[in-house]
């Protein structure tokens, strides 16, 4: 495993791809890998791109990656698409829109299925980002599944969140609802060559004029036509501006502390659950309790209490 990690740090793409699979499948080796790459993470600028299905996220990510390559950055991309809740299968189609990045050794693209995880990302997305960081990519783009209103998890992974909209989506009431628009550091109306773009921009600007979550940063509302690259330079500029903003006044440190806290709590929950299953909750015991809950013999909280009583001793 040392060897795999060493190869990742040296920029070996196969080692990187293989380690991603190990982590995604929760292989026992993944712990060792993450432990060893962790000191090499925390350096890249992580940009989240989210928005409804069909707004053009993948095409925009592709255009953006090309733009940052021209600016001398290396770009890692993790693109998440949904898994079927019925078969567990998935059709991952984000690469179709990213063909112009093929053959560029400064770009690495990995498609991920959400594997039942809600929130817009997959369980292991954050860990795959860490591998890309360790492999030396300086800008990492995380593209979420087509997201509606509540898939706001990307805000925890990414320093800069770009929310992509398209003309004709929603009205001014949609724009003032809580959720995805609130997490945007940059708002983009893509497909701006279609009718209704300026109207959507006006609605979003009206929303922002009522206030934004961080008084010191008002999200810009930009227009792009991703397939022909219009507005992409301006978007890259805005992303760099946001990084400069974060880098000032201890904001980045605050972000990292918050992220560390969340990652720790998540790991704690995960490990606690694993320990419970190992020690006091085998599948039969679980099935028995579920059956009793189902029959209304016991409520879910009391059932959980019974399981925990066994380790309280």
């Amino acid at each position, binding site marked *: 495993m040392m060897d795999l990690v060493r190869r990742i740090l040296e920029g070996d*793409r196969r080692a990187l791809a293989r380690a991603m*699979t190990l982590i995604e499948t929760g292989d026992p080796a993944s712990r060792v890998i993450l432990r060893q790459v962790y000191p090499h993470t925390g350096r890249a600028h992580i940009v989240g791109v989210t928005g409804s299905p069909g707004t053009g996220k993948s095409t925009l990510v592709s255009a953006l990656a090309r733009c940052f390559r021209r600016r001398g950055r290396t770009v890692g991309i993790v693109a998440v698409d949904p898994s079927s809740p019925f*078969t*567990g299968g*998935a*059709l991952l*189609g984000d690469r179709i829109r990213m*063909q112009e990045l093929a053959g560029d050794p400064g770009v690495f693209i990995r498609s991920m299925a959400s594997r039942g995880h809600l929130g817009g990302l997959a369980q292991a997305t954050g860990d795959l980002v860490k591998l890309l960081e360790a492999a030396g990519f300086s800008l990492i783009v995380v593209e979420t599944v087509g997201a509606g209103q509540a898939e706001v998890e990307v805000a925890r992974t990414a320093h800069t969140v770009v929310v992509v909209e398209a003309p004709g989506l929603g009205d001014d009431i949609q724009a003032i609802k809580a959720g995805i628009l609130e997490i945007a550091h940059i708002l983009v109306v893509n497909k701006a060559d279609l009718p209704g773009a300026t109207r959507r921009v006006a609605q979003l600007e009206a929303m922002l004029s009522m206030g934004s979550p961080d008084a010191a940063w008002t999200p810009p509302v930009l227009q792009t036509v991703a397939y022909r690259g219009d507005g992409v330079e301006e978007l890259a500029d805005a992303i760099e501006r946001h990084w400069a903003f974060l880098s000032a006044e201890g904001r980045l440190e605050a972000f990292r502390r918050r992220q560390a806290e969340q990652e720790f709590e998540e790991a704690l929950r995960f490990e606690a659950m694993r320990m419970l299953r190992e020690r006091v909750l085998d599948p039969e015991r679980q099935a028995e309790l579920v059956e009793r809950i189902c029959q209304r013999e016991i409520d879910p909280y009391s059932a959980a209490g019974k399981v925990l009583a066994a380790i309280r001793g």
Partner: protein
Amino acid sequence: MERKIRVLVAKPGLDGHDRGAKVVARALRDAGMEVIYTGLQQTPEMIVEAALQEDVDVVGLSILSGAHMTLLPRVTQLLRERGAEDILVIAGGIIPDEDVEPLRQAGIAAIYGPGTPTREIVEFIRAHVRPR
């Protein structure tokens, strides 16, 4: 997390008919696999690089242009050069009978013509995918 079979479905060459590729991609999805669909007009180099980045178990190539004797062996050759000959490579499309054996020799594990039941492809992949 259980291990999912990951499949890259790609169309090498210049023909624009991807109906078959999409039908197969969908069938594999419905069989519980994770299918990375890369779309049309892929060079063998693009396909192999994508297969390595995605760390797939299987590459499925769809070709109707008649250039299969050039493009398909090139994919398996590039995979070998990159040390990834353990990836199962299968192909579908309009491929004359006399070309089937040479393609097998070149490392294409199975070749499917029009009208193949998708179940057959699913079963072949499940039976022949490399153990990890």
